């Protein structure tokens, strides 16, 4: 039954890929289509308001400058609101202003689509902050990632000097995807008992006669965009484990699909842009193969339970239920964990810190690879980065100039791809080492031994991958952790985006090379295997030593 329910969710996802991928293609192809009749009017009004008269294509540099500058302005605006929330409206529970280093961390966390939370929303944020900062940035960070991914795809599949107009892409991502779909999702969640109110926290009398406070608020609207935008986090500190965020198995499946569908559909969109659907399916298949390996590992590990508890004579027939919700069980928890780490959403429906050692290695490994579907746009960009690397390596082996989609891959593109690939382990492993060497860092570890290594490693890996989940036993709301993870989140987000836009800007100017009988094909099963092999060789081997020190060593001590 467990396996059947996981297979049903995966089957629904696969059925969604083609229609969703086609829809996204029509949104961003900039060809006139039926969608213009519905969304054209509101969009023209927005363009007028922001002074966008001519929607001319931008060079990669102008595109990158536009999205970075937009993000700076949004970050500064959000910083002010969080610091002044005590004097702003919609604060019925009387929340004080947020501490400066925590504000620094929170603003970066949400502008980078990470949504790492070193606080609990119900006890730290006013309703105004939840809506004007948290939800606003859930929309804008997702739209930014989506726009950059589409611009990158345009760059490697078209010919010219430009890769689109950032502001047009940014507006369209909101008006045609995130706003309408999240509104529908919100209504569905409200119908399934998720609260949506501006009433203050309830104070009720329990059956034992004690007084208890029950936090409520505009939960459903935040839930819908937090998943759709692969943002993560949640209205409540325990995210989707909270019964008001995720009341039953049906809402659990809806949340899984809403965070997984768009990242899974993007490879198909890429295939349509490349005018070769098989090219898109190659990327999708590589992602799905990696995903299924991770899901199998998570489910098996959690189902087998904790050997230490079994040794005490405790019935482990249900599997390792520590930190999990009974209403979801092992299958729905393992699937949610694997999807939330794959799509770099980072919201949780079970506590990742209490996963078995190999179960905890699953989200950790997915974030280290950062290509298993990935967040809004980032996963596709990273996987295509590995595809170009695979082509380059194959070209070296057979002594031919590497080509990808008819463009020659030269040293300058490889230099930028190498920087983007190496930046990821660098911004994980160096801060992890610094944390171990300083009292400020290892003072936060609550689990001595190997699990403590995993806690620190997970925090920086989650920050670098812009995921946002955590091994929450770590005492991370301190200036050291707020500032260090804040900087890692920034580097994890913008280095690869800028470098890959530069690669797109370089490739878009190149004259396509005619295909010959000697051209290395990148749209078949052989290349799918090579792509997976490249990801595992480069990505996994980089992190192998630290994985052995953390989760693997912990697993061996439990046996």
């Amino acid at each position, binding site marked *: 039954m467990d396996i059947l329910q996981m297979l049903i969710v995966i089957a629904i996802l696969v059925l969604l890929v083609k229609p969703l991928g086609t829809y996204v293609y029509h949104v961003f192809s900039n060809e006139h289509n039926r969608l213009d009749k519905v969304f054209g009017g509101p969009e023209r009004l927005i363009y007028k308001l922001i002074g966008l008269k001519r929607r001319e294509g931008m060079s*990669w540099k102008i595109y990158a400058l536009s999205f970075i500058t937009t993000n700076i302005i949004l970050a500064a605006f959000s910083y002010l609101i969080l610091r002044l929330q005590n004097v702003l409206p919609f604060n019925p529970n009387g929340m004080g202003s947020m501490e*400066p280093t925590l504000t*620094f961390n929170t603003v*970066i966390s949400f502008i980078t689509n990470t949504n790492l939370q070193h606080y609990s929303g119900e006890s730290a944020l006013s309703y105004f902050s939840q809506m004007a900062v948290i939800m606003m940035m859930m929309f804008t960070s997702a739209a930014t990632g989506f726009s950059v991914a589409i611009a990158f795809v345009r760059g490697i599949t078209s010919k010219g000097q430009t890769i689109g107009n950032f502001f047009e892409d940014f507006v369209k991502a909101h008006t045609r995807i995130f706003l309408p779909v999240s509104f529908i999702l919100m209504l569905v969640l409200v119908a399934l008992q998720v609260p949506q109110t501006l009433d203050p926290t309830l104070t009720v009398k329990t059956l034992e006669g004690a007084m208890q406070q029950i936090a409520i608020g505009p939960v459903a609207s935040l839930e819908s965009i937090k998943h759709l935008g692969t943002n993560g986090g949640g209205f409540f500190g325990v995210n989707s484990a909270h019964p008001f965020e995720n009341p039953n198995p049906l809402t659990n499946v809806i949340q899984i699909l809403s965070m997984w569908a768009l990242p899974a559909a993007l490879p198909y969109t890429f295939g349509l842009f490349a005018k070769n659907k098989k090219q898109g399916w190659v990327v999708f298949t590589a992602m799905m193969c990696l995903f299924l390996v991770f899901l199998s590992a998570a489910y098996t590990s959690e189902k087998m339970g904790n050997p230490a508890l079994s040794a005490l004579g405790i019935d482990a027939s249900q599997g390792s239920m520590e930190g999990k919700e009974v209403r979801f069980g092992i299958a729905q928890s393992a699937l949610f964990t694997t999807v939330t780490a794959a799509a770099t959403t980072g919201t949780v429906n079970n506590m990742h810190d209490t996963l078995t050692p190999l179960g905890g290695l699953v989200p950790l490994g997915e974030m280290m690879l950062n290509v298993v579907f990935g967040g809004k746009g980032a996963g596709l960009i990273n996987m295509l980065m590995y595809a170009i690397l695979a082509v380059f390596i194959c070209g070296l082996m057979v002594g031919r100039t590497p080509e990808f989609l008819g463009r020659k891959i030269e040293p*300058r593109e490889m230099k930028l791809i190498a920087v983007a690939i190496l930046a990821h382990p660098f911004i994980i492993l160096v801060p992890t080492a610094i944390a171990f060497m300083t009292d400020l860092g290892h003072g936060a570890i609550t689990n001595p031994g190997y699990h403590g290594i995993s806690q620190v490693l997970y925090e920086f890996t989650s920050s670098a991958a812009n995921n946002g989940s955590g091994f929450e036993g770590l005492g991370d709301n301190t200036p050291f952790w707020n500032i260090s993870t804040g900087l890692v989140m*920034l580097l994890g987000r913008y280095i690869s985006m800028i*470098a890959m836009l*530069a*690669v797109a800007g370089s490739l878009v100017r*190149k004259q396509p090379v005619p295909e010959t009988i000697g051209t290395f094909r990148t749209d078949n099963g052989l290349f799918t295997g090579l792509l997976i092999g490249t990801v595992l060789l480069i990505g996994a081997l980089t992190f192998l030593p630290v994985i052995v020190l953390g989760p693997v060593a912990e697993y061996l001590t439990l046996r």
Partner: protein
Amino acid sequence: MLDVYMIVALLASFGLFYGFLTWCGSVIDQTGES
């Protein structure tokens, strides 16, 4: 005062990305079409 440090750190980080963008541009333009 801590607010000033945090805002400066935030702006300096984005300044770093402008620098990185410029460096990427110089890499791409090193040898001109191919």
